[in-house]
């Protein structure tokens, strides 16, 4: 359970930071009058908080998967699935998609329609290419003797990449809905709140994928072995 506990430490740090701004040591029974609310202001719109909290939940989900994966490696003599080189390309595509989404935000903020459209198309293509690439990896593994009901390491690969892909797909649908809602509207800046949320979501999914990719490659094992040795 090292992975999920490490993730929860990060969540606890963020929660602690937020709590430290809430005047938890104040004496409300002695105070009357209208007190200012902490943690409100530009950039803290409900939608932003919604996505941030949702990313924490999704992060918990992937960390749990990571934990289950590591636990099984620890208990059974497994061989990791030899991942095809295409996974590296997919990782690069998701990284690009995340970068392009940031360009979308910058363009929307600046109000430049041409750049916004170009970066939006680029981000969408990179994301869809990532999904197609993951599907291609599935096909390669299945035909290479690692089907879904094969060794548990293969099952984990399909499950982890599948759930991550579903989250990416959900992001694409949300992005399309935002663009369609504002299609034909003259004001590019009206897109800004929506694409900011999408960009945050893309960055989050990229971070999760990098963590999962490292685990699936077996890079986390040495670190986790060190943690276990420290505990036991």
């Amino acid at each position: 359970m090292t992975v999920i506990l490490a993730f929860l430490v990060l969540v606890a740090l963020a929660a602690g930071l937020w709590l430290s701004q809430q005047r938890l040591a104040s004496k409300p029974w002695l105070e009357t009058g209208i007190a200012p609310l902490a943690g409100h202001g530009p950039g803290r719109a409900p939608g932003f908080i919604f996505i941030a909290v949702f990313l924490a939940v999704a992060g918990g989900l992937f960390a749990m998967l990571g934990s289950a994966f590591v636990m099984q490696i620890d208990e059974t003599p497994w061989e990791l699935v030899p991942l095809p080189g295409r996974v590296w390309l997919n990782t690069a595509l998701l990284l690009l998609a995340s970068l392009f989404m940031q360009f979308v935000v910058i363009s929307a903020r600046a109000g430049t329609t041409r750049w916004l459209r170009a970066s939006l198309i680029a981000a969408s293509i990179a994301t869809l290419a990532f999904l197609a690439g993951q599907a291609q990896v599935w096909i390669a593994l299945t035909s290479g003797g690692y089907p879904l009901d094969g060794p548990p390491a293969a099952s984990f690969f399909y499950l982890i990449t599948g759930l991550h892909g579903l989250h990416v797909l959900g992001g694409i649908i949300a992005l399309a809905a935002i663009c369609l809602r504002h299609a034909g509207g003259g004001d590019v800046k009206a897109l800004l709140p929506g694409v900011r949320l999408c960009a945050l979501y893309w960055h989050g999914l990229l971070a999760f994928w990098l963590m999962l990719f490292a685990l699936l490659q077996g890079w986390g094992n040495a670190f986790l072995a060190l943690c276990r040795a420290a505990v036991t």
Partner: protein
Amino acid sequence: MTDILPEHDSNLPPREVADVMPPHAHSWIGKYVFSQDAKYIAIQYSGTAAAIGLVALVLSWLMRLQLGFPGLFDFITPEAYYQFVTMHGMIMVIYLLTAIFLGGFGNYLIPLMVGARDMVFPFVNMLSYWIYLLAVLVLVASFFVPGGPTGAGWTLSPPQAVLSGTPGGAQSGIILMLVSLILFIIGFTMGGLNYAVTVLQARTRGMTMMRLPLTVWGIFTATVMALLAFPALFVACVMMLFDRLLGTSFFMPTLVELGEKLSYGGGSPIAFQHLFWFFGHPEVYIVALPAFGIVSDLIAVHARKNVFGYRMMVWAIVIIGALSFIVWAHHMYVSGMHPWFGFFFATTTLIIAIPTAIKVYNWILTLWKGDIHLTLPMLFALGFIVTFVNGGLTGLFLGNVVVDVPLSDTMFVVAHFHMVMGVAPIMVIFGAIYHWYPKITGRMLNEAMGQIHFWVTFIGAYAVFFPMHYVGLVGVPRRYFEIGEPAFLTAPVDGLNAFISSAALIVGAVQVLFLFNIFWSLRHGLAAGGNPWRATSLEWQTPETPPRHGNWGDDLPNVYRWAYDYSVPGAPKDYVAQNDPWVPDSGGRRL
């Protein structure tokens, strides 16, 4: 006293949160069926949870009939008994307690108590309820499929949960259970995101976190915990569903069934236990923390006294929430673990007793020298404290490895967790319904029926679960369809089991009276007025009772103080509402 921004209403600081009226439905279906109003959604959640809870109650009767009078009822087969146990446990913990505290009380109280017009995302909130209802319907459907519902026990432990020897294992029962849980978690996540963001971002002007009623603190913290803990159950359910349907071996070791080697191999059943209990233990506090918060408010209102140690109460809620994530393996002592881990989990388990004890002491000190009104909410609050202390103390025993190992598979554990997370939170739910029913309906619940309900429930619950501790201590194992009088029992338990079962039937029956009271009082209850308990928190200050769509009329309230100004010296009344700008020691001056 410290005044913060002591300005006149005409010179108020700008609102941090925009006052946006939520979408208003005009059709009957939009208003009452697919409602986006959190108050209606709360009632939908509570009604559905109560209905499925009644099914679980009947299942508990059937179990007790078998244990109290073995052999008397032919229709209760061993398979059926295990199905009753499984469905009773799962329904009560997930579909009743979690749903009613967060979906029911959370939806009704959060927007009103923080001074918001509604949840921040009303449409998502509505979806949350309908997915929850779908989860319940899928669960109920499992009673009607060939083989019936799963009988794997509420912990659904693999590999037995998906094998043919377990009721529903090789048929659809386990599939429907897992699908239902997955749906529940998706639905809850939608609702939970709403509860959290509403508390974080929709508080009205002046409602700082340290002015929130403890009810909101409890529900908010429990929501955050649930959002972080339910993914563990989600992952476990998806993986087990894959094992059952797609032939993977996440939790399935190499197995031989009826002399035939199965296609499974290489999986780890213990991994499932870790995932399940990583959700399962926080779940105890997901239920308990809202109960802690609500009971704090009930005691303060009905003892006319400010809650003792508010800051400590808030800190204790947060600390309990955090600690509950590092104790899960105390449910797995008998599964075996490294001795150091056993020591670690026993220590963290016992440490949780400290903030919990702080809360208990603070409730008692709130009552101390209070103007105690033995109203129905107060009676149930007192019943909760006593029951929670009893259940908590046996938890201290079971937190120790050496005590837990011999007791873990006995009825002692059944008695313990029913006291601490069955009876105790149910007491709070009843108290809360008696307390907030006047706000929801505008009428009071009938007092005489309520008194009968309380005393029969309270005494009856003790008649059920006190002797059950003894039954466990003399060695009666749990999860057994029939035990007879084996040599390892140190005393006969037949008579005691019959007594417990009789008491359980009576306690269950009196809940029918409670339900009757709910419906009867809708029409015949005394008119309540806007604030019958003379309470300070914002939900009692709405312009109309029951509150209308948007809650607050034309203007959102401003909050000038915390939620516990009772019996304040010099105040014109024995309470000062949170939105009352009265200034202490000012000769009647208002901010």
